[in-house]
């Protein structure tokens, strides 16, 4: 999937809001590393502006947000900040506890996929790889 033919996909795995549990995000980071991707892994409580800066400077292909409690409610704010910084085409996925009734709203706001607890490893890795591949192929992506 992530062969040595191309530069490894770069995925940001991070947490916003107040929650600090990182068992899930650590495991996903390991999954992605074992699939040959480079994971920029942050501690919890990241500020939205810091993440926008990070996503630019690190030229990330995909952003993965790990969320518990109601932190997912901040994701639309992140998406808006990314659009304002011309990063609107960077795909964002969310993993963790997201109530059913919020799922649609997040997808409408631009989140590409939500991974609930119990999501299969292959599903997570394949989805992120596919999003990264698409990100790299997009015409706007390579030009300045």
């Amino acid at each position: 999937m992530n062969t040595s033919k191309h530069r490894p996909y770069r995925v940001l795995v991070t947490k916003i809001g107040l929650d600090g549990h990182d068992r899930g995000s650590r495991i996903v980071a390991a999954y992605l590393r074992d699939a040959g991707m480079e994971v920029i892994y942050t501690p919890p409580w990241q500020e939205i502006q810091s993440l926008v800066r990070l996503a630019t400077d690190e030229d990330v292909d995909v952003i993965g947000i790990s969320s518990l409690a109601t932190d997912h409610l901040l994701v639309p704010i992140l998406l808006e900040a990314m659009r304002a910084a011309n990063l609107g085409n960077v795909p964002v996925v969310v993993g963790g506890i997201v109530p059913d009734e919020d799922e649609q709203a997040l997808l409408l706001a631009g989140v590409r996929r939500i991974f609930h607890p119990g999501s299969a490893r292959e599903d997570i890795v394949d989805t992120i790889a596919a999003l990264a591949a698409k990100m790299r192929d997009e015409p706007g992506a390579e030009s300045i």
Partner: protein
Amino acid sequence: MSSRPAVKSSGGADLAAYVRGGNRAAIAKALSAVETGGEKSAALLRALHGFTGRARVVGITGAPGVGKSTLVGALIAELRKRNQSVGVIAVDPSSPISGGAILGDRVRMTMHADDDSVFIRSLASRGGTGGLSLATSRAVDVLDAAGFDNVIIETVGAGQSEIDVADVADVTVVVCAPGLGDDVQAMKAGLLEVADVLVVNKADDPLAAVTVKQLESMLVLRRRADREVPVLKTAAREAEGISGLADALDSAIKGLDKKTRVERSSARVQRLLAAMAGGIVTRRLKTARRKELDRLLSQVAAGELDLESAAVELLKSDVWRDD
């Protein structure tokens, strides 16, 4: 300038121009472009070539857990106070099996999130010493051309990489933590030799003074004719001793007289060239003409030919030339 301009370009020349202008998105894209080498990367680097050589390149290395990232964060703050801009390349090891990596260093420097004069990029070591030096040196060139006064390379302190950083840096700082006891004594010989500055972090630890003494006595044994290697104490978390470190970097750079700079530079290029050539040999072996290669391999396996002779024969032969 943190957003990506919507302008499309036709290739390396435009990207180079944006990089030299300090455009963050362009710098980020350029760093990606030069990561794996190849034609596009070479073109970009050629376009940037005349604009490199201005930045001070500082390598910071040491064993895991000594507090390098926190130290770099504190150093960035100090350099900013001195009105200097800073680019950082934070290197973490790639998995030798999957080729992937977890890059977690930059967040210990997040206090600088809003500062436009600070640029932090995480880099994976990508399988091997030679590879690290080359990729890092290309990344340094990009940040150099982008106009940063300082480029700091922070490397993981495992394997050979901490010695390799000296290939790329003007000044190499080796960081230790107190209480490592035997580890200080057992510090790799090469590491002590490449150090231009030695730092004992976590200075508030009661064992810090002892560690300083140990290092000083080790230095005496390996006294270098061309320079004094200062041993400094820092407490990165409390931002103590950082000003002294910045001063030591200034001295070390100044102390690099022209002759030393030229010697070092050519020694470095030589090593990088050897690394590059070695990489090419490794790659080409994979597509080598099997019959002759197999002959060599079976001779070595049978003990008829020693490895060194086999390697010399390999280099002289046609085995690894393109079909």
